[in-house]
């Protein structure tokens, strides 16, 4: 369990603890095997007791990933380190100096998972696409240490009108992830990640894909040619979101008229001022619709 003070010094230096690093370096030449008995298992947020041997007074130093401390101790007695002093998981170095210095290192493991950081991408996904939704979960203990121990995490995907789909994924190096297809129906997809009694929830909006089978109808009125689409849907039958632009085009020889009209309640409407006999067509995104011939006399 003892640890080279050389390594300890390097660790302290790289972790930006200059005072401890200085002390460590100063003692480098006099370090010996520590008269310390360290716990075999230590967990973040749990008190640690370090047994010492020998007699007389000494100075105890403890340097960890996010803290360092100094205390006067009596050799031969246990050194009690409070839970607060070992909240950060990682490698700690204990040093005792009494004339000469001894050191030993120990590892504090993360505590039990207490929260899950859960990221899902994208926030909107068109329906019917493969591997378009991905999620990644990171378990953390109550002190925000990433739990590195392999742990089974449950991902549950539930969309309205479908049976929830569940899968268990084991974390590797503190990370568990999944990738999945979007469904056929537009609407919210609720994704829940759980680990024992800890869970987190995200929602991905499954949205309609590109319009499909665009069909229009129209008639000449006093104000011009009134055209409108039939309800605009994607190839899975989902209505496209309101605001989707449908471009109506009326051609009469070289004369061309356009209107970019937004879909409202599934239908896009526009008025075209074209004169004479015209051919009206519509397009939205990559989809084109039928052509409509409207005579000039109507």
């Amino acid at each position, binding site marked *: 369990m003892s640890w080279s003070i050389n390594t300890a010094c390097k660790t302290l230096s790289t972790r930006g603890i200059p005072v401890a690093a200085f002390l460590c370096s100063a003692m480098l030449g006099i370090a010996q095997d520590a008269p310390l008995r360290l716990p075999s298992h230590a967990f973040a947020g749990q008190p640690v007791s370090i047994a010492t041997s020998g007699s007389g007074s000494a100075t105890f130093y403890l340097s960890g990933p996010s803290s360092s401390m100094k205390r006067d101790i009596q050799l031969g007695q246990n050194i009690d380190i409070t839970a607060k002093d070992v909240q950060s998981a990682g490698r700690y170095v204990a040093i005792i100096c009494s004339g000469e210095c001894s050191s030993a290192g120990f590892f504090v493991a993360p505590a039990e998972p207490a929260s899950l*950081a*859960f*990221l*899902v*991408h*994208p*926030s*909107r996904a068109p329906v019917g696409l493969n591997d378009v939704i991905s999620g990644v979960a990171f378990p953390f203990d109550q002190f925000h240490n990433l739990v590195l121990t392999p742990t089974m995490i449950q991902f549950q995907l539930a969309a309205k009108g479908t049976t929830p789909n569940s899968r268990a994924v084991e974390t590797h190096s503190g990370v568990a992830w999944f990738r999945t297809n979007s469904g056929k129906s537009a609407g919210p997809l609720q994704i829940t990640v759980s680990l024992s009694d800890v869970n*987190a929830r*995200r929602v991905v909006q499954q*949205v*309609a894909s*590109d*319009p499909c089978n665009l069909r229009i109808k129209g008639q000449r009125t006093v104000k011009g040619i009134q055209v409108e689409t039939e309800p605009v849907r994607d190839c899975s039958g989902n209505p*496209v*979101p*309101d*605001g*989707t*632009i*449908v*471009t109506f085009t009326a051609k009469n020889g*070289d*004369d*061309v*008229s*356009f*209107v*970019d*009209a*937004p879909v*409202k309640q599934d239908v896009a409407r*526009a*008025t*075209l*001022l*074209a*004169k004479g006999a015209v051919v009206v067509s519509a397009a*939205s*995104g990559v989809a084109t619709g039928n052509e409509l011939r409207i005579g000039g006399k109507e």
Partner: protein
Amino acid sequence: MKRALPIVIVILAVTVVLIFLGLSTGRSAGTVGVAAGTALPGFSTNASTPEQAANNFLLDVQRRNWDRAFSNVERTSDSLNEETFIQEWVGSNGGLRSFSSLERFETRPLHATDSEAQMRVRLHWSTPVGPVEDVRDFRLAHRGDAWKIIWDDAPKPNVPAQIVPVNYLRWDLVTGTAGEEWGSHNVDAPNVRIVSMNAVDSAEGAVVMGEVVNEDTIPAFVNVNATLVNGSGSTIDDESSFDKILHVLLPKQVTPYRIDFPQVSLSKVKNVRMDVKATLVPASSDPVIGVMNQKLDKDAQGHSVLHGELLNESGQTVNIPHVIASFYDNNGKVVWVADGYVEHALLPQATESFAVEIPQSLAGKVQNFHVVVNQYSLQNS
């Protein structure tokens, strides 16, 4: 010192004489001050020629001397009064003309007889969106001992009082509160894509243009940047589409973009790096502006232009309409993107004509076109 004193006195005397001469000459030539009202450069009260009449008229317009300008026009209809005449020149309803001033003009006679003449006038306006050039043909008639400008513009039809139900969509953007769980309120940026890109050399330099589509289901604020890279991999220049793009794109909407690189030749360019940036913005689908009766044609000067009419299908005044047109060849490739600001405001349910020019060298290639309309409304800004 004794020698220098007479020289200084002589220099002072000569200076005083020159100043006096200068002032006297100035007054007689009418180039100093405007108090007399007749001493304007280029202005003559007796418009004995059509050129002089047109010049006098435009000088009055330039100086906003409306009474005198109006007295020099001959109306063809009683409905054309001084108020509508002034509105024609100074604009109204917050249109671009309202923020413009006539910087200079050039007149050129087209034909003239003893009784009538036609003048072509090139008007150079300075506007908030840059210089705007307007070409108009004036008809003049000899009346008594003076030439009068014939004003036969049809007055714009008044927009009747009406109620236009507005039920278009609006998207608001809600920012999550800071206290929420990390990663719980990430809303992705809209998904937009450059669907075409073409780079050409023009008289002013290199031009990169094409089209962008919003493939998402939410509105996007879009900007396109291009970087020109030379053979050694170093950057020649980078520019953005600035105002030559429809920035707010509704779902599935397509906009042309054009990026100008003045004084850069494509022969030096090895590579063009394109970058489209899209951000989530609050947006409205109102107003809907139709682009009607578009036709490729030649204007009076023989230039190829696409002209048509904008129809405001909503109940909101569009103060400054901005037309952006993409032109395609027979393969559907974008060969040119042109834009133009419409000088008059587009009133609700009313139309306003527009025209954008196509370079002569490309006019023969153009087989198709698509026009989008950017709109600036004072009540939204």
